[in-house]
C-alpha cells in the first residue's frame, strides 16, 4: 500500500521529567520518552518498526538510534540518528513521514533527549561551543554562540531601529506563558527592566535574552491514518512542511536580518494551502530573543522590521491575538540542547487535545512550528492540524 504525506498522522507523544533531572542520563531519558509515547499512542514497543533519535551533545555515541532500540529491547526495521541542531527536530518528523510513505516502516517514533544541565562537563561544553563556528575563519576570534546572534541583533537594530527593550519583550512573553505551565523550568514573571538589568553577555544581548539550559526529552509517534483508526487519540494531521538553508557560518550569511525561515515558511504554507492569518498558535525557535523576532517577521506574523513592535504590543502573550510558545519555549520551559524544539510539538498536541491547563486556547485548529539550527542557518517549518 502506498501512502501520501496526507496519510501520515501523529498518534502519540510524551515528555520525560523536564528541567533539572540529575537521576537520568541522555539515553535513559530518550528511552523513557519512547516507552511513554508508545503507551500514550495505545501501542506496544514491539509495534515500533522505525526509530529516529537525536544524538546527545553530552554523551554522543555512534549509532544512537540503534543503541536506544537495543536499550528498549526492540529491533526496528529502520533506525536513524540525527544530531546537528535545533532545525532537525521537524526535519526528523518529515523523515519519519517519508519513511512510512515509502514503506521503510509503518510506525515510527521520533525521540529526542539530552542532559545539558546535569551532565555537561566544562571540557565538553568548550568542544560544543567551538563546533558552531568556522574553525579557521571565525573561531580564532573567540566568538561565543550568543555573540553570533548578537551580530544579527545589532544589524536588525541598525536597519530597522529595533531597540534592546523590544528584544527584552521576548522573555517577558515567554515567562508570562511559563508562569501558567507547571513543567516549565523558570516560571517567575519578568519585566523589561529585569531583562535590561540582567548580566551583559554580548551586546546587545543580555542573560535574559538567552535560552536556558535543561535536561529532558520527548517522543512523538507517527503512523498511517488507517492504522490510527483504532488508537485512543484523535490523529493529528501533517498539513505542510518546508525547509530553508542559505549558509552555515554567520560570516557567510547573504542577509543578516532576513533568514531562510522565509522560504521555509513559504513552502510549508503553500503545501498546507494556508497563510499566517490561518494559524491559531505559533511555536517558534527562541534560542535567543532576536531569533524569535526574526522568525515572527520571516514567517509572516508581522511585517519585516516590525518584530520588535509586534512583541511590544503584547500580541504574543496570554490573551493576545497570536499565542506564541504557549509552553514557555526554550527561554523558560526546557532547552536540553538539540531537542529543544520538540517541546513546541508536544505542547501543540496538548493544545489540540484540550489538555493545556491554564494555557489552553479555545479549540485551536492549526499550529505552526518552526525550528532552526546553526546561527539562523538551517530552517524547518511544520504546520499541523486537528482532524475534523
Amino acid at each position, binding site marked *: 500500500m502506498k501512502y501520501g504525506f496526507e496519510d501520515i498522522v501523529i498518534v502519540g507523544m510524551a515528555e520525560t521529567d523536564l528541567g533539572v533531572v540529575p537521576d537520568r542520563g541522555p539515553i535513559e531519558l530518550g528511552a523513557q520518552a519512547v516507552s511513554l509515547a508508545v503507551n500514550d499512542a495505545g501501542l506496544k514497543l514491539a509495534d515500533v518498526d522505525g526509530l529516529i533519535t537525536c544524538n546527545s551533545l553530552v554523551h554522543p555515541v555512534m549509532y544512537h538510534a540503534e543503541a536506544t532500540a537495543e536499550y528498549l529491547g526492540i529491533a526496528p526495521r529502520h533506525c536513524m540518528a540525527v544530531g546537528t541542531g535545533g532545525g532537525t527536530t521537524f526535519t526528523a518528523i518529515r523523515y519519519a513521514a517519508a519513511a512510512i510513505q515509502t514503506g521503510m516502516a509503518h510506525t515510527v517514533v521520533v525521540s529526542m533527549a539530552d542532559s545539558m544541565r546535569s551532565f555537561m562537563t566544562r571540557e565538553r561544553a*568548550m568542544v560544543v*561551543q*567551538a563546533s558552531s563556528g*568556522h*574553525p*579557521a*575563519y*571565525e*573561531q*580564532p*576570534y*573567540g*566568538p*561565543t554562540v*550568543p*555573540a553570533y546572534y*548578537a*551580530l*544579527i*541583533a*545589532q*544589524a536588525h537594530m*541598525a536597519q530597522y531601529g529595533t531597540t534592546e527593550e523590544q528584544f527584552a519583550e521576548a522573555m517577558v512573553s515567554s515567562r508570562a506563558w511559563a508562569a501558567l505551565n507547571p513543567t516549565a523550568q523558570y516560571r517567575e514573571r519578568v519585566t523589561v527592566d529585569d531583562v535590561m538589568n540582567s*548580566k*551583559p*553577555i*554580548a*551586546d*546587545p*544581548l543580555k542573560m535574559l535574552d538567552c535560552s536556558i539550559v535543561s535536561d529532558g526529552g520527548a517522543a512523538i509517534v507517527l503512523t498511517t491514518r488507517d492504522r490510527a483508526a483504532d488508537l485512543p487519540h484523535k490523529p493529528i494531521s501533517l498539513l505542510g512542511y518546508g525547509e530553508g538553508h542559505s549558509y552555515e557560518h*554567520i*560570516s*557567510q550569511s547573504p542577509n*543578516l536580518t532576513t533568514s531562510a525561515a522565509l522560504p521555509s515558511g513559504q513552502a510549508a504554507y503553500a503545501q498546507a494551502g494556508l497563510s499566517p492569518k490561518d494559524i491559531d498558535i505559533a511555536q517558534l525557535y527562541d534560542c535567543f530573543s532576536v531569533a524569535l523576532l526574526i522568525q515572527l517577521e520571516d514567517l509572516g506574523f508581522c511585517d519585516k522590521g516590525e518584530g520588535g513592535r509586534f512583541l511590544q504590543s503584547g500580541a504574543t502573550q496570554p490573551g493576545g491575538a497570536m499565542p506564541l510558545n504557549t509552553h514557555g519555549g526554550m527561554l523558560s520551559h526546557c532547552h536540553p540542547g538539540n531537542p529543544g524544539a520538540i517541546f513546541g510539538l508536544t505542547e501543540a498536541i496538548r493544545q489540540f487535545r484540550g489538555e493545556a491547563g491554564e494555557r489552553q486556547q479555545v479549540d485551536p485548529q492549526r499550529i505552526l512550528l518552526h525550528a532552526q539550527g546553526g546561527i539562523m542557518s538551517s530552517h524547518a517549518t511544520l504546520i499541523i492540524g486537528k482532524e475534523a
Partner: protein
Amino acid sequence: MQRPLPTPSPLEQPYFDGCREGELRLQTCNHCHRAQFYPRVLCSHCGHDDLTWQPASGRGVIASFTVARRAVSQAFEAPYVIALIDLEEGVRLMSHVVDVDPEAVTVGLPVTVAFEVWSEDVTLPVFKPH
C-alpha cells in the same frame, strides 16, 4: 590557555602566508572576476575553478558587530569587539575591531586592516577605524 588556531590546508596557505607578510589576500575568479572569502577549490559565485590570489585593499566597513562581555575562554579577555567586515572587494569576513573604545563602534564605521600575531605560526587580520 591558547586561542583557537586555524590549521590551513595547502589550498588555504597563501591566505595565511599573506597575513604573516602583512598583506590581505583574496581569491579572485578569472571567469567572473569576483573575489571570494573564504578560500575554496572553486568560485562560489560562478562555479569555475580558475582562481588567482590577489592583494585586497584592506579597506571596508563594519556590517555588524558585538562587544563580547563574557569571553569564550580564558584565552580571551573581555570586553572584545567581534565584527563582520564588508571589504571593498565585496566579501565579508569575521574579525576583531581593535584600538577603539567599544562604545564608539557602529554599523557602517569605515575600517582598515592591521595584522596581529596569534601564535608563532599564525598571524591574523584585525581591523582599526580609519
